[in-house]
């Protein structure tokens, strides 16, 4: 019997062959904590589990990305406590401004093919972009990993996405991610792993878009088989491969030739329509950023559409690069200058306004177009705000350009 990628990765971790449905205990390769939850994770480990020191400091990574830099005395105090903990326990910490955990762990080679990378964040599915088993868990589960080195989980079934063809001009991978939300719905992959086939040609940033959005289908993990650019950059274990004999719960075929630009409209990620259906809707804020679409390629796409133009007077363009590396890439050519000349407001690398806590929280009358991953009510700001979102970087720039022509 063949194995899915999830079965292969979990089998290797357990030490014998496992099948979907099995209850297993594994030792994750990496357990990530970010600033928003690490204080509670430390509390659970030390006060509830009565474990003072982490089990495997070299298997833990901390990132200050949610409120980066600190926005209040309270968050600053928490962040200092995290720094002290990291220092005392010998844990690697990525400081405020280095960027979003999901971007940084890939840049640093911490997430890599075949590893189990768990995180205190639902978008931990992002690590599937490099062929890792990436999944999000709550504070208690992460505390258990930090304290004991192990965690229990059920081996998921796998849904195969069989992609054919290439993107047409004006369409890119975010449109594919949104199309999958539309087809499978927000719960279509609950408890499952999603495997994306037919994408050997897709860049690493493109794979990151898909893997980060896997959780918006309800998935436990979303894995792009390590190939192409990823196989050139990372070592791929010989036991990790797409198995022709693997058994899938469901197969979904997507023909890219037929794919149109997509937008998710308020207030669910699977409320996806064609861009043409909502063109002309006025917006007050455009947000370019997040672990889904805050990389150099996204900034460059927006710059190409804004070159020589200005953001309309009643629109704010917020740009929050996913990491310091991506920001530096945007300064090496004229990408960043172009965005700034057009009137973009630059935020420090991190999650930015994505959760509605800082760096561009929306007011009651704002309408925001975002390259992020969720448009739930109240997330980026006031509960009454329609958060028209989830456009690809290209379409986002397109909207900005239309605003500039005053067609709002």
């Amino acid at each position, binding site marked *: 019997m063949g194995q899915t990628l999830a079965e292969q990765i979990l089998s290797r971790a357990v030490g014998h062959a496992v099948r979907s449905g099995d209850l297993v205990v594994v030792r994750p390769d990496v357990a990530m904590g970010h600033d928003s939850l690490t204080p509670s994770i430390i509390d659970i480990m030390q006060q509830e589990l009565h474990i003072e020191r982490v089990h495997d400091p070299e298997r833990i990574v901390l990132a200050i990305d949610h409120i980066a830099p600190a926005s209040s005395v309270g968050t600053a105090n928490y962040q200092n406590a995290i720094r002290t903990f990291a220092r005392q326990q010998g844990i690697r910490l990525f400081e405020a401004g280095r960027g979003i955990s999901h971007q940084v762990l890939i840049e640093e080679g911490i997430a890599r093919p075949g590893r189990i990378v768990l995180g205190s964040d639902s978008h931990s599915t992002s690590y599937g972009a490099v062929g890792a088993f990436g999944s999000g868990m*709550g504070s208690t589960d992460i505390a258990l990993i930090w304290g004991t080195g192990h965690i229990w989980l059920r081996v998921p079934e796998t849904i195969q996405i069989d992609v054919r063809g290439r993107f047409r001009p004006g369409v890119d991978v975010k449109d594919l991610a949104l199309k999958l939300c539309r087809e499978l719905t927000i719960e279509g992959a609950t408890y499952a792993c999603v495997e994306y086939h037919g994408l050997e040609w897709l860049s690493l940033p493109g794979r990151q878009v898909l893997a980060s959005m896997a959780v918006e289908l309800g998935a436990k993990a979303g894995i792009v088989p390590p190939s192409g650019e990823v196989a050139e950059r990372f070592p791929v274990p010989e036991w990790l491969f797409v198995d022709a004999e693997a058994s899938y719960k469901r197969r979904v075929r997507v023909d890219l030739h037929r794919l149109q630009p997509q937008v998710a409209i308020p207030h669910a990620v699977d409320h996806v329509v064609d861009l043409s259906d909502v063109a002309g809707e006025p917006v007050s804020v455009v947000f370019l950023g997040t672990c889904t679409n805050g990389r150099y390629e996204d900034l460059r796409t927006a710059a190409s559409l804004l070159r020589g133009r200005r953001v309309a007077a009643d629109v704010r363009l917020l740009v929050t690069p996913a990491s310091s590396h991506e920001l530096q890439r945007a300064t090496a050519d004229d990408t960043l200058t172009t965005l700034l000349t057009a009137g973009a407001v630059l935020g420090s690398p991190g999650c930015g306004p994505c959760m509605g806590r800082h760096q561009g929280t929306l007011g009651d009358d704002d309408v925001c177009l975002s390259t992020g991953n969720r448009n739930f009510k109240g997330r980026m700001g006031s509960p009454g705000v329609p958060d028209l979102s989830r456009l690809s970087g290209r379409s986002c720039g397109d909207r900005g350009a239309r605003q500039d022509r005053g067609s709002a």
Partner: protein
Amino acid sequence: MARVWKFGSNVDTDQIVPGRYAPYMRPGEDVGKAAFIEARPDFAEQAQPGDLLVAERNFGCGSSREYAASALGRRQVGAIIALSFARIFFRNAVSLGIPTFVAADLVAAVKDGDEVVLDLQRRHVVLGGREFPLPPPPGFVQEIIDAGGIVPFVERHGRFPGR
């Protein structure tokens, strides 16, 4: 008697506790007071210990924030009963020892505001004289809930479930 608070489908964790009410953002505050504070302020104001939270499909989708589940735990909801759960939320609720059930008949039968009796020993809900059984969750899930959560389970047994 327990009051039923009925919700629809796809209730996400940003509705359950918005990010700006996270313990990280409000040190020293009781996160239980923020349960549904923007999405359903009447719940935030009025929910009593023992009340029943009933929902349709995919309850708890979105962010992995465990404080969404712990806010409901701090409000001492008697049980969360839905047609289906999002996976991270379900896992978090179970980890915290919150009784969680999938029970389609009950979800279809109750309305918001109904008064019911929740009997966890007999594992049923009584509405208007009629008993609705609460199907038991998978064995290891029940083991964790019976222990009061995954931390008490691990402390008591020195292992994870299923071995």
